[in-house]
């Protein structure tokens, strides 16, 4: 069987993005399950400490394409390099971050290779499949698991016939884990100049304004999250007040973001951020499965909801039946009173 490849995004600082390190960590486990090697694909310019950074994740081979035209990212040159590499190496599995880069390049590559791609997986596993129609047994396929259809179902997707089996995964879904600080792989440089053609530069970047997101809910130990049930932008201010006092961050469900209560950067869930805080307070959130996929690993969950049958309550440690606008001020009051 061939190897597992992870497309590694180069960050603004010239390092490798967290989401890619998380995917390498997961990729290493899958590679061990399948008894194959883990290979990283890095496309950029003057990437810092590449080998020292990636080998500890158990990377056997780093494929590095370096050219000043390869950073910042544009679609066509990166696609050409990946297609050249995959054409030679024929990966068994290829993983991409479900970021604005990964979700731009992975479908383009999958289309060119005519292979299957599953977006925003929340879990990846290895398993077998028996196809009744053709009476064919497939061993060791990649199960690509994701909520679907508005979160009412969880689908397991497979690509029995085509290779690589491709998937994208959001930042924070997989855990970043060092395999061994002593692990050493090897670096293979790709000849970018000979692969790239003039046509690859049909799109040019005129201007860029990148900033590290000021909102960092992923690394917060306490998250106060609001849903559509919070009711208004004004009521969200209560959540911000509580968050200030607790040193917490404010998160939101997709419905609250769609309603314009808060910015998209705060969205928790399958199409937002995945979080694992010590405490998650869900305010007026009903708890569609896509939302729960992004927070159900929280150590403690408190749900504040007027509806006692809201799905979120079933994974909550505490369910406060009540109105957010009534309960939050009380929490603020009694926190202040008891915290000294």
């Amino acid at each position, binding site marked *: 069987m061939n190897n597992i490849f992870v497309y590694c995004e180069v960050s603004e600082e010239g390092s490798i993005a967290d989401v890619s390190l998380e995917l390498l960590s997961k990729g290493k486990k899958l590679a061990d399950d399948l008894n194959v090697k883990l290979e990283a694909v890095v496309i950029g310019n003057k990437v810092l400490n590449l080998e020292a950074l990636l080998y500890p994740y158990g990377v056997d081979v780093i494929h590095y394409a370096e050219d000043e035209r390869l950073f*910042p990212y544009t*679609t*066509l040159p990166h696609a050409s390099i990946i297609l050249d590499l995959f054409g030679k190496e024929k990966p068994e599995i290829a993983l991409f971050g479900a970021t*604005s880069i990964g*979700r*731009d*390049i992975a*479908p*383009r590559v*999958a289309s060119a290779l*005519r*292979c*299957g*791609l599953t*977006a*925003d997986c929340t879990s990846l596993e290895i398993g077998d*499949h028996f196809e009744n129609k053709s009476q064919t047994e497939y061993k060791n396929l990649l199960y*690509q698991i994701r909520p*679907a*259809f*508005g*979160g*009412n*179902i969880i*689908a*397991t997707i*497979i*690509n029995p*016939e*085509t290779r690589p089996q491709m998937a994208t995964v959001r930042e924070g879904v997989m855990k970043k884990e060092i395999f061994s600080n002593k692990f050493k792989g090897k670096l293979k440089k790709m000849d970018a100049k000979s692969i790239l053609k003039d046509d690859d530069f*049909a*799109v040019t*970047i*005129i201007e860029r*304004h*990148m*900033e590290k997101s000021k909102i960092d809910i992923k690394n917060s130990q*306490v998250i106060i999250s609001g849903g559509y049930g919070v009711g208004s932008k004004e009521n969200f201010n209560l959540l911000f007040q509580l968050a200030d006092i607790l040193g917490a961050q404010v998160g939101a469900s997709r419905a609250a973001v769609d309603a314009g209560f808060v910015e998209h950067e705060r969205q928790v869930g399958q199409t937002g951020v995945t979080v694992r805080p010590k405490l998650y307070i869900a305010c007026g959130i009903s708890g569609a*499965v896509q939302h729960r996929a992004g927070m159900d690993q929280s*150590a*403690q969950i*408190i*749900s504040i909801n007027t509806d006692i049958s809201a*799905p979120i309550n*079933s*994974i909550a*440690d*505490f*369910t*406060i*039946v*009540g109105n957010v606008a*009534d*309960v939050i001020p*009380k*929490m603020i009051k*009694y926190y202040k*009173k*008891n*915290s000294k």
Partner: protein
Amino acid sequence: MRFRIIVLAKQVPDTRNVGKDAMKADGTVNRAALPAIFNPEDLHALEQALSIKDKIPEAEVIILTMGPFRAAEIIREAMYRGADRGYLITDRKFAGSDTLATSYALSLACKKLAPYHLVISGRQAIDGDTAQVGPQTAEKLGIPQITYAEEILSVDAKKIIVKRRLEMGVEVVNSTLPAAITVHGSAPVCRQRVAKLLMKYKHARTVTELQNETKDYTELYNDRPYLLIDEWTADDLNAQVEMLGLSGSPTKVKKIENVVFQHKDSKVMGSSDKEIESLMQELIGSHIIG
């Protein structure tokens, strides 16, 4: 050459408003209970196309959708808002298409509509959230792609300048034409229906829809051929059957699980002062907060 814009749009079940009757007693999704709507980001895409037409009046906006017969509804909706004409790709052979098979069929239809300058679609559809069909259609057409577009800053017959909205900021890019663009939800919302266009196109029908009409409209459609919405089948597109539907879809659904809530031992409490105070004391006491 007339500036031609193809807008790719999809009719989707409104998964954002899943009510209690959306699930059947056996736990499966009751699709009939979900209203079918114009995919929201595709409406943003239509607006971008129409705003180009505002600047280049001779530009034409063609709406292209793949789906069952009833998807003609969104073609009419687009015409009420300013699209010039529309095509419905519909065939049983398309059933079960994943994004790869879908983009194959859409790309064939785009080729039939060539020469075009732009293929614009929403970033993603709310029933799948994959964001794959736009880039995959671009790849099959062999044209560059600009995803996450928020604003088209300028366009002429040869090039386009687009502002993209990314996770970490914004980027302004220049592309040669033809190009494919996927439009982000942060782009301006679509203009409303125009009364004059509503009157003009309210009888626009596909052939299939006409066959189900009780009145005979033959004369009307002879008079006003623009009221006929074209339907294209797999044969009309000269599609290779093995690349359509289930056989053209490399991804297979192995298993569907209805969402089962795993009950924790949840402590249910009211919102009285006493109850909230004792909860806060417990959280502080266990060092979860404070």
